[in-house]
């Protein structure tokens, strides 16, 4: 499982906060173990890794396989993470909103010589997820679950609803999650469907 760090400068700008949520949402769907300054507990690492880093004085950032920075607003930490990733040859995605002037920190990099492990990308509010998905796929063997964004009204019988209540009680799953997981399982096992998909892709 890939470990990644996301940094979003503290902000009250709702558009940026929405982008932060979208970035974290992709990581969640990709089963990335995400540490982030935007979470109450910044480090999301097993205690044995934290202890090992403590003993060897190695920064926790070193345990990350990828770094994502939302750098639309000027912030010294964004520049630091960029420098660190360059020095450590770690994959980093530096994002800023399309239409804005490029962040000042990028001026100090020779844009012609940016190594392939550093991706600098602009995004529109509805396009940030795509940028993150592409970056994560380039980092390693990452499978990203599709985002369920098609609204579907489904009428159920009372007994079906009771069953769903029973199956999701004391779990973190919603009834919709439970149904989605089941449909995913059916799709995985359906050879006819897979054949059809292959045919469609040519």
């Amino acid at each position, binding site marked *: 499982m890939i470990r990644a760090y996301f940094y979003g400068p503290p902000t009250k700008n709702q558009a940026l906060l929405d982008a932060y949520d979208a970035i974290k949402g992709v990581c969640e769907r990709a089963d990335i173990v995400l540490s982030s300054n935007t979470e109450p507990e910044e480090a999301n690492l097993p205690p044995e890794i934290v202890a090992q880093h403590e003993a*060897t004085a190695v920064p*926790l950032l070193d345990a990350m396989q990828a770094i994502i920075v939302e750098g639309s*607003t*000027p912030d010294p930490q964004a520049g*630091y993470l960029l420098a660190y990733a360059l*020095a*450590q040859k770690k994959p980093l995605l530096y994002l800023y909103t399309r239409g804005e*002037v490029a*962040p000042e920190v990028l001026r100090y990099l020779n844009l012609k010589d940016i190594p392939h492990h550093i991706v600098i990308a602009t995004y529109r509010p509805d396009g940030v997820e795509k940028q993150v998905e592409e970056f994560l796929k380039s980092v390693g063997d990452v499978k990203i679950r599709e985002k369920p964004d098609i609204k579907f009204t489904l009428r159920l019988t009372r007994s079906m609803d009771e069953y769903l209540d029973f199956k999701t009680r004391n779990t973190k799953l919603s009834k919709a999650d439970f149904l989605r997981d089941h449909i995913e399982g059916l799709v995985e096992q359906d050879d006819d469907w897979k054949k059809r998909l292959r045919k469609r892709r040519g």
Partner: protein
Amino acid sequence: MAKLARKRVALLFAGGTMLSHEPKQWELVKKPEDMERWLDHFTELNVVADVKAVFITGRGSTEIGPTDWLAMAEAVRKHTGSVDGFVVLHGIETLHYTANALSLMLRNLPFPVVVSGSPLRIPGLGVRQVEFAARANIINAVQVAAADMAEVCVVFGNRIMKASRVQPTLADGSLQLTTVDGSMLGRVDFGTKMFENRVTRRHRKPRWSIFLDDKVFVTTITPAGSGDSFRLAFRGDFHAILARVHELVTIPDYVDREFLRAHGQGIPVIVSSRHPLPGLRKEFIVLTGVSPSMAVVKVMWALGQTREPAKMRKLLDQNVAGEIIHRGSTP
């Protein structure tokens, strides 16, 4: 988009510059002309701050001593006002001596002076690991030099430490730096996080105490010695004797005699000990509560200002840079 004020940081080259841009090809700064090429291989530093290069020495860590410490302190004084902070690049082996000395000479600073550098080439540690650790240390040091801090400190790995308390330690078979009391001024995990106990930036006039006299005869007292071992001290034009008495509580007679002889010749005798020394004569100065490297450096620093035993005693007794952890013992 709003702009951030770009910080200017002076890099003082004094070793600790081992980088490898190609396998088995090490980049070192041995003379002033090497600095530009070294910085060309470290362009990512520009992202963190506007870097100004200052050459101090190209000698290895174990060759660096009081003359270089004075040169570093003078360089800080000279460039004060033109930069937001300083980073001293240094090899790890004797980094604690340099850090201790700078903490005594540079006080009441309105900016940080950060001592850091490359780790040692440890057998078993790959070139890539050494290279990455070195670059990370230096980036972290520059980031701290641009941060809200105003004292001499050491950045090593994820530790930001008070320079006056730093000492080396062996962990996992490699040489590391830590503090005598385990305290830290901040940490680097996903970025620099400063703790409340640090001194923060504000307008203040630096107190320069750039004095060192290295004519100190340093010896360790054991029951196996004899007066002969002190002959060198009397022959060598030494201005003070620093005796480390770490295992004994009572000073052997042969030592007591030689100490008295030195005292009679106007040579201050300083005894650094882990334990109280109840039988020690009043004429001798006891130095406790500081690390072994700080004991040496502090005696040099005090001796640089006076040779008068009473004044030396007063200087050595002062907690100049937070170096005294607990009086009555040496950590």
